[in-house]
């Protein structure tokens, strides 16, 4: 059953232009575009590819999880699909597992895609152990994002409001997560806002792990603690959701 559900979940994703554009076209296109502008620049000890590759991999994960996983849940709820599926004997666990696997498959494709672009265009060096470590953390961040996205989108019952929220949050994340615009060169209030953005913390942790430069200092612990607190709050929100069906 899980294989059938997953097959159709992936098929539906591939047919939703909105999801595909925001998750698999915009991030790689931005990665290439910025690379054309800044690939000659060097950051303290790191090249453009070393800095940007993990960032854009993470941006794809964010886009997939928030659009194709979180927003998709709202769309199914608002359009009555969720209720109709609930009526069939398929278990909620199968649907959830398929949604998780779908997100992991698509984000993993994004992981490979960005690394492929980096390899071909920006002389990115790929080291297997480093890649595997980064991929492991990438899966952990996928889990964090899915939990937080599920909690946030559980508040939405209307597609229009969820769509507006998704597009706004995408812009905010793009600006304040240190993905493409250096936060430390931005106004004070943006830097403060960035500290509240979980993607900012994930991005820096991921860049450090990806480059094998993780240092266990207070900043690292603050980032990890912040993410753990967010996941805990998200779990509480999901747990407290009112029961809609008999089971």
């Amino acid at each position, binding site marked *: 059953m899980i294989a059938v559900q997953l097959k159709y979940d992936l098929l539906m994703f591939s047919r939703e232009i909105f999801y595909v554009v925001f998750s698999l076209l915009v991030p790689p296109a931005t990665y290439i575009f910025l690379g054309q502008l800044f690939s000659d620049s060097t950051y303290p000890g790191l090249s453009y590819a070393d800095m940007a590759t993990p960032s854009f991999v993470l941006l794809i994960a964010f886009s997939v999880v928030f659009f194709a996983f979180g927003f998709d849940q709202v769309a199914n709820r608002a*359009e009555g699909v969720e209720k*109709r599926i609930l009526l069939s*004997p398929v278990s909620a666990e199968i649907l959830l597992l398929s949604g998780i696997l779908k997100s992991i498959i698509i984000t993993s494709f994004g992981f490979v895609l960005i690394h492929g672009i980096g390899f071909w265009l920006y002389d990115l060096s790929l080291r297997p152990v480093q890649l595997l470590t980064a991929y492991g953390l990438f899966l952990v961040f996928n889990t964090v994002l899915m939990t937080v996205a599920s909690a946030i989108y559980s508040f939405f019952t209307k597609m229009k409001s969820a769509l507006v929220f998704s597009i706004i949050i995408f812009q905010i994340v793009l600006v304040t997560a240190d993905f493409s615009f250096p936060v430390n060169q931005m106004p004070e209030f943006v830097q403060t806002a960035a500290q509240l953005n979980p993607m900012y913390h994930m991005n820096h942790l991921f860049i450090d792990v990806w480059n094998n430069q993780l240092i266990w200092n207070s900043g690292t612990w603050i980032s990890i603690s912040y993410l753990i607190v967010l996941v805990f709050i998200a779990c509480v929100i999901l747990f407290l959701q009112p029961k809609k069906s008999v089971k």
Partner: protein
Amino acid sequence: MTIVQVQNLHKSYGSHHVLRGIDFKANAGEIIGVIGKNGAGKSTFLEVIMTVKSFDEGDVQLFGQSIQEASGLQLKALRQRISAILQPTQFYKSLKVEELLHLFRAYYQSDVKVEQLIADFSLASHRKTYFDKLSGGWKQKVSLAIAFLAKPKLLILDEPTTGLDPHMRQMLWSYIQHYNQKTGGTVILTTHSMDEIERFCDKVMLIEKGRVKQFDTVVRLLASGYASMNDYYLQNVPHEEDAS
């Protein structure tokens, strides 16, 4: 054999008390119409017996099994025996008709062949059409085809013919009647068409403000002095302006 037994069913949305002590019983092979004004509680009642909506008080038994006491596995087994058309009818919009049939065939672990279903419901011309692109009538037709994938013992239909032209109505009813007569399945539906109630239903339950105002056979209701079910409805369900 009793298929559905409901006792003293209560359901509220916040402070809005939608169902106020509904008692109901459906036997095998019966076609029962649930009627009442918009907002009377018809759809909520159907969604409770479909097991997709929780309730506050009372007892609901399907096939002799209390749904509030059923384990997850027992509930899954109950859902294998129930099919429904919801209002409005919605499925994954970016799947084509035949893909939806394959997906739901897997959900219900049905041995009904998709090709057979496409032939039975004359869906061949729209098999490659996205569900979202179908007209209202075709959506209902596909929904009914999906409902029959489960070989249900209980079919629950929420306003299945609303907005359909007479040809489509006739066709849907021919499928429903055929199912009822061939399999002995029970059908519970809501409709605003008193003509359909009179022609196709064995019993009718009138809900008013969340309470059962009357529950009887169509034959007995008509014999009690009403020229038609339309006449019965007009005399027993106050018009909004009359009520205010």
